[in-house]
């Protein structure tokens, strides 16, 4: 795909547009970066440093819509992100599913308009179905209803669920899901609580 794009760019560059030559893909990319820096202001908790991409963001921004990255690229991104996952020192991955439900419902947090001392949620329902009681759920991510009932309640599934919430790109490169632990959106306790929402046999998700 990278190669294909370069060929197209070279092709474009050879076609005169009036008297101007079309800028290369790299030129457009660097103009876009500079333009972004000049087009925002730091407000509240959202500084301009948020416009600086890490390697994962940079690579994933090159993808065509709905397309997964090439195998080698995906493996590299997943390895890079897998290395960031920190499991709780006490070894306990499950918190309180009732708190997990509140975190799943909460949409505030990290916006420039949000109180920095206010709640920070995971907003899971924006993209996922979870409990059958909540009808207002989005469909950007898959349904997580009966998450553990379908996959089992064992230690491996717990570890997978915790790790996925901590850093989704470790398991699916360029996932649309935020990396809640890696980017310090949620605390360790909050991740435990959301993991419990998915994994606890008493959670309505598994009813």
């Amino acid at each position, binding site marked *: 795909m990278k190669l294909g794009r370069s060929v197209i760019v070279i092709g474009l560059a050879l076609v005169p*547009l*009036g008297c*101007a030559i*079309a*800028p290369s893909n790299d030129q*457009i*990319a660097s*103009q*876009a970066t500079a*333009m*972004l820096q*000049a*087009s*925002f*202001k*730091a*407000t509240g908790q*959202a*500084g*301009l440093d*948020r*416009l*600086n*991409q890490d390697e*994962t*963001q940079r690579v*994933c*921004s*090159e*993808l065509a*819509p*709905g397309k997964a990255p090439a195998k080698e690229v995906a493996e590299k991104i997943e390895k890079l992100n897998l290395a960031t996952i920190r499991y709780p020192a006490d070894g306990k991955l499950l918190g309180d599913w009732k708190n997990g439900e509140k975190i799943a419902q909460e949409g505030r947090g*990290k*916006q*420039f*308009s949000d109180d920095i001392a206010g709640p920070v949620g995971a907003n899971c*329902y*924006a*993209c996922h179905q979870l409990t059958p009681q909540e*009808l*207002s*759920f*989005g*469909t*950007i991510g898959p349904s997580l209803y009966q998450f553990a009932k379908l996959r089992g309640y064992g230690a491996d599934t717990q570890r997978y669920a915790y790790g996925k919430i901590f850093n989704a*790109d470790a398991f699916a490169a360029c996932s*649309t899901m*935020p*990396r809640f632990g890696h*980017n*310090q*959106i949620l605390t360790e306790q909050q991740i435990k609580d959301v993991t419990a929402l998915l994994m606890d046999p008493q959670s309505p998700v598994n009813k």
Partner: protein
Amino acid sequence: MPDFPRRGSWLVALLTAVAIPSVLAQGSAVDEIAKYRAALQDGNPAELWEARGEELWKQKRGPRQVSMEQCDLGLGAGVVKGAYARLPRYFADADRVMDLETRLVWCMVAQQGYTEADAKKSPFGNGNARKSDIEALVAYITSESRGVPMNVSLAHPKEAAMYRIGEKMFYFRGGPHDFGCVTCHGEDGKRIRLQDLPNLTKLEGAQKAYTTWPAYRVSQGELRTFQWRLYDCFRQQRFPELLYGSDASIALTMFLARNANGAAFDAPAIKR
């Protein structure tokens, strides 16, 4: 003046009462919301913004006490009919690609004598508490393109470059949540909660979305412009605050407007 926020609240109450009793299965809740949206089309308070905008356009205002009727929106001084369907575009007098809102600010400064800070002082209104002149002007000018096919040109090299930069920005993922425009607007048939998301990478989605902004937002009791749409998307993306009329906002607008080419413009619309 009628009390718009109250009317908005009343409609929201109607939505809550009619559309989402907890006993309904989700499929029928979605159907009910579709019915509610259809019912909204009967009357659009945006007309009040359009009327105020037309007055503001014709009134002698600003330090120089001139009207905006000398403002060239791209089709010649004072020509409003069909102008929005061809924006953004390159303006030689400003040597810059501009969307409608940037152009209005430019005319307010260059012709009416306002300072740029004054012209940009209140781009987004807040019901009756704070009215925005730009929102009203945008409502009027866009209404004069209703039914006109979108026809945005990339003939000028600066227009072509803006389109390509805007495309880059659409796919740019960043911030603490790794979000970009494409996160929510890159696939068919997706929703946030119960809100349908247009796929802006496909012709049909781009056309339907772009041609229905600006819009009267019932939930806010306000007419919202395309600059506001981008501003609030970036807020929810957890980006810093988008500057009004910034080049990034124009580049993205250029990308989306051009992708809507061929579709009849159909706004100001009314949305939840």
